[in-house]
């Protein structure tokens, strides 16, 4: 009996050799993820069921009360609405602009490398630095936009101070900021399309628009799908430009969810409700991404 048992044990030890080797290789990222992703995530979920003291320690278990409070709060609903509007303004426009630029920059012309560099250059600028520049552009009296309007005798706009304009202005700067990355990814996707497909279509006599519709867009669909997903998630998580340009104002019109989380946690020290908001945002992004994979991927042609 004893002999057979040790044999069985040994074989289990031996059989798990592959799994143990795999684990060893995974260990560094498991450690990193645990410290910077998994622990904060579970801590957030845990905290969302509590009221906290000023140091962010759980003080009183309140169950789902943080969530019910949020759903009834007008400010939070306003912030959700602002976030969705912001996503709607920035994602489609940004991707379409990036696609047009990528199509232009994909042509074989002299000096096209210069334009490719220019178009993708916003990738190299930090959110903070570019937001400061935009702050100057939007300035009501010395800003370039109002000066331009002045030249054409158009009425002045309070870009960041008027609640009807503020979200649009922030969206504008965000679109500009994200174009570089989307452009670069889409250009890469375009260059991956086999040149012979276009030559074959040209021999058949297909026009530029026909080629764009029947070849470029379908062949680019995996890349487009990727960039749409990434842009959506990014837009939901926007923080930097809000903090510098508007601080959530005027009258909460640009108070996007992440900024609202920040204010709740580090200005109002309400870590419980802030955590509940974060969990809510997480669920939102998860649902949108799942929906996108379910609906969007059907139209994607992987090679």
């Amino acid at each position, binding site marked *: 009996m004893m002999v057979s048992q040790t044999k069985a044990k040994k074989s289990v030890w031996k059989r798990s050799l592959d799994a143990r080797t795999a684990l060893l290789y995974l260990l560094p990222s498991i450690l990193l993820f645990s410290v910077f992703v998994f622990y904060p995530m579970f801590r957030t979920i845990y905290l969302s069921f509590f009221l906290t003291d000023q140091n962010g320690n759980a003080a009183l278990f309140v169950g789902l009360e943080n969530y019910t409070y949020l759903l009834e709060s007008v400010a939070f609903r306003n912030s959700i609405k602002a976030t969705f509007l912001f996503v709607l303004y920035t994602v489609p426009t940004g991707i379409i602009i990036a696609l047009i630029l990528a199509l232009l920059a994909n042509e074989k012309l002299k000096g096209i490398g210069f334009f490719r560099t220019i178009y993708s250059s916003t990738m190299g600028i930090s959110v903070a630095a570019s937001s400061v520049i935009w702050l100057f552009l939007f300035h009501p009296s010395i800003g370039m936009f109002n000066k331009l309007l002045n030249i054409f005798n158009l009425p002045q706009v309070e870009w960041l101070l008027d609640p009807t304009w503020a979200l649009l202005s922030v969206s504008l700067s965000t679109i500009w900021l994200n174009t570089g990355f989307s452009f670069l990814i889409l250009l890469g996707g375009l260059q991956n399309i*086999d040149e*012979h*497909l276009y*030559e*074959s*279509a*040209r*021999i*058949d*006599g*297909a026009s530029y628009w*026909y080629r764009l519709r*029947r*070849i470029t867009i*379908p*062949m680019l*669909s995996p890349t487009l799908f990727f960039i749409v997903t990434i842009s959506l998630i990014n837009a939901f998580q926007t923080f930097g430009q809000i903090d510098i340009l508007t601080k959530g104002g005027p009258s909460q019109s640009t108070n996007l969810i992440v900024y609202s989380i920040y204010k709740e946690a580090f200005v109002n020290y309400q870590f419980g409700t802030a955590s509940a908001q974060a969990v809510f945002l997480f669920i939102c992004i998860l649902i949108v991404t799942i929906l996108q994979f379910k609906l969007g991927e059907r139209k994607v*042609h992987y*090679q």
Partner: protein
Amino acid sequence: MKKVELIDISKSYDKQSNVISNINVTIEPGEFFVLVGPSGCGKSTMLRMIAGLEEITDGVLKIGEKEVNDLPPSKRDLSMVFQNYALYPHLTVKENIQFGLHVKKIPKKDRMIRTSDVAEMLGLTDYLKRKPRELSGGQRQRVALARAIVNEAPICLMDEPLSNLDAKLRAHMRSEIRQIQRRLGITMIYVTHDQIEAMTMGDRIMILHEGSIQQIGNPIDVYNNPANPFVATFIGSPPMNITSGVGDKESNAIRLNDSISIPVPFEDERYLMEKIIVGIRPEHIKAATKESKEAEKILVEVVNVEILGNETVFSFLMGEGSWQVKWSGQWQIEVGDKIPLIMNYESFCFFDSEKKEIIKKPSDVENHVFGKEVFV
């Protein structure tokens, strides 16, 4: 069915050196014309110029009777098969075949009829609903062919269409493409680097090297009478044996190396030049028999032997390279054997060493030409 005429065609990318220069050729209607040459010789560029995918730097290109230099590809009334097939991966086989018909706004009913006709001709009927990635290499090749012929264009261009297939399938598709071309009577311009494809498929072949024409003619003529040493070594497998020789006026012979020399008859004295290039086909080197004169026997040492079924190829050293001999039958030859050979003077080609032109054609090819009379 239209003819294609190239008049003084040149192509240059940097406006200084020509990658293709002074091409003059007329491709007859309904002809299977093969452009053959080593990679980088400009054959694909030439095909793309005919298609209109590359600009023509200099010269005139006529299709039918019309000059088409400035016409876009779609107006040249031709179809093209690409080396990698260029199938649209996101479309089904049927949509791929119909792509061109769609563009040309051909009515749906016609489209269906033509697609099913072509699919049947190429045995694709069962695969119409599949995507290209679900097909084998040979099937993809057929789809590419189908896409080219469904347009019913009078001219079809093919750019190395078989190079992605394995050897067996390639041999099969060779005859299939040839048959389709005959049946439809289209003018075919076919680019390949494979001399076997050129020999077996072409009505006429054009050998290109470094952007200029080496020879144009029907395959057998080119094989028998190569215009220069390049053609001689490019066409034929194994290639023609070539070496440089020295004419010796005292002994009336051309010396190839220390031990081997070819006696030259009195009336061909003019070939006894200081320097001359000598060539002979591997199958024209014969085994010495008991009847052979002792003086004509050449003793060589075998350095390599290959037996391909009923064909034996062996090589021996000659000058800097090696010469090959091809005999039919399974010869029991070992490496290191000393073998007596006979090389008839009539079988040799001589090339001018300066101009690289043929000056003496082989006259002893009668044993390889059969007329229809031999059939009972």
